[in-house]
């Protein structure tokens, strides 16, 4: 599912260059639940953004869900993000002005050319089904501000699942949640993996990493 080889990623803060990923290699098979742990600032999120096609400014070889990310132009990467991967962020990243169901519908509004775009009523139906899958069907009309942290994260997961991607990428998904809510999110990931989805999580939380099938440590820009 994921094949990274010799990934280099650096950025400059204006005074000096910082190496974030240094000849990094990563192989993840389909249906695997992999956790990447590391200290704050170790490059975990950067790795996730490279894998998810959010960051195209790197060198090395990256094949994810059958796509050579280096060969994709910005439009191709956008299409890849829309169809091949689902993102879950630490701070949920829901649009505050939209009700839960509208937030879940969002990926369906950006269907790339050449693919069938569902009409809005069908999209809403699919979004409600996704919300139902994470146990939030009855709160579909609520704004994010009127949901608990755990509920917001489950809405974010429902949104990530809308396009039925093969790969779920989660960036500190339990970082802002209390123990109970975090546990429900972890249980959801486990359930998704049991259904054949590949999940790559970056975290520094042990409660999450211990539930993963494989744990990798990111240190000095490389995985161990």
């Amino acid at each position, binding site marked *: 599912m994921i094949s990274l080889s010799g990934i280099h990623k650096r950025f400059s803060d204006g005074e000096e260059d910082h190496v974030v990923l240094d000849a990094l290699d990563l192989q993840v098979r389909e249906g695997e639940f992999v956790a990447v742990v590391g200290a704050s600032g170790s490059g975990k999120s950067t790795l996730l953004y490279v894998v998810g096609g959010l960051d195209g400014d790197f060198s090395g070889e990256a094949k994810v869900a059958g796509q050579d990310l280096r060969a994709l132009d910005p439009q191709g990467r956008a299409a890849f993000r829309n169809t091949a991967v689902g993102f879950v962020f630490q701070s949920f990243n829901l649009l505050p002005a939209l009700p839960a169901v509208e937030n879940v519908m969002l990926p369906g509004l950006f269907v790339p050319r050449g693919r069938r775009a569902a009409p*809005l009523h069908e999209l809403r139906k699919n979004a409600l089904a996704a919300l139902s899958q994470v146990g939030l069907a009855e709160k579909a009309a609520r704004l994010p501000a009127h949901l608990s942290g755990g509920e917001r994260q489950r809405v974010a997961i429902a949104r990530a699942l809308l396009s039925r991607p093969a790969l779920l990428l989660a960036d500190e998904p339990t970082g802002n949640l209390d123990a109970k809510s975090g546990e429900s999110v972890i249980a959801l990931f486990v359930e998704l993996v049991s259904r054949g989805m590949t999940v790559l999580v970056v975290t520094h939380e042990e409660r999450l990493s211990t539930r993963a099938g494989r744990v990798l440590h990111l240190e000095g820009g490389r995985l161990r």
Partner: protein
Amino acid sequence: MRTRALVHLASLNLRSDRRGALVNAGAACVGAAALVFFVALGLGVGQAARRMFASDARLLEVVPAAVSLGGALGGGLLDDSAVERLRSLPGVAGAYRRLSLRVPVASSRPPEGVKVNWPPGFTVQLPVVGVDPDLLQGDVARGRRFEDPPPGRPIPVLASRRLLEVYNKTIAPAWNLRRLPPGFDLVGLEFPVRVGFSIIPLKTEDKVYDANLVLVGLSDRVPLYSLAVPLATVRRLHAEYGKADPGYTGVTLEARRPDDVPSLAEAVRRMGFGVDEGDRALGERVGLAVAVTAGALALLALLMTGLAALAIAQSLSASVRGRTREIAILEALGATAADVRSLVLAEAGLVGLSGGLLGVGMAFGLSLLADRVGLRYLPDFPFRPETFFAFPPWLFALGVAVSTGAALVGALAPAALAARVDPARSVS
């Protein structure tokens, strides 16, 4: 991104920022309202001016030159040979002679069958001009004839189409005469007149006799304060009273196309004759004044629309900067830079469209109000229109299009700014 999805998301975004959307729509609305209002006013007043100074754009009035070297240069007298030369000018479809009657004609009694509160002893001197019948044939009422009548029969006349309006609004109030009802059919009215009689005693001829004039039609080709009779009638009366006919008072040239008139006027002047601009020139001057004023106001309105575009640009730029993270989230979910650009433009387009629709409605409402105020406070004058505004369908479309266009232009820079958001940097 599909259009329906784009409109859906743009509407959701606008709903989430109602205040900003309302302010921007308000700016667009004011620009559109001002533009539509002033253009409608210009069109309406222009139409009223054309009714007031109705003239045929293909006609040119040729008169003898005020100062002339006479026939030496081919100009001066408007005799039959001059008429033939005028008729042979390129672009001339017809040349029609006019000859003012030099025998005085006056009326001391009202038309038969019409009670107009005629004051005792009141006498009206009637200016009469003889005209080639072909010029007015199209305006002669069905069943009537415009030709010199046999002795004893009423003389057919045509009056200006504007005469009833001018009579009702100016002459009747000034002389305390009864006004004629709207739609009153003047054709067929007979006016008892005294031929040879003048209100200036020294100008009264030795021979004075009673006759009748009968109105056979109304025409815009007849001067406002004259009555037109057949040219042959004027010749007959001149012969009867021993008046010489050295030349015609004027010749009306009919051009093949309105565009030919300026070159024809130039050719006529070169021949040594004058061109009487008369009502047409006045109408053109009024029309020009209206067009210039309306144009200046429309320009001002366009400037307001431009300012609205700037306000929208500034407001949207601030909005985009404040939504950087939201834009990055959309990109993380699959939006391309083009989608983001389209989204900002769609938001601006919806704001401009709703502002434009509101503005057009506001302009229409203001015009109704202005008309009511105008009708209430302006004095009654000839050809005063029921409305000072004209709203052709294209004007509504123009208002909405300009408003939407201004909003879209204002959104170009913010849209470009939004499209440059780097999702990897801004999403977390």
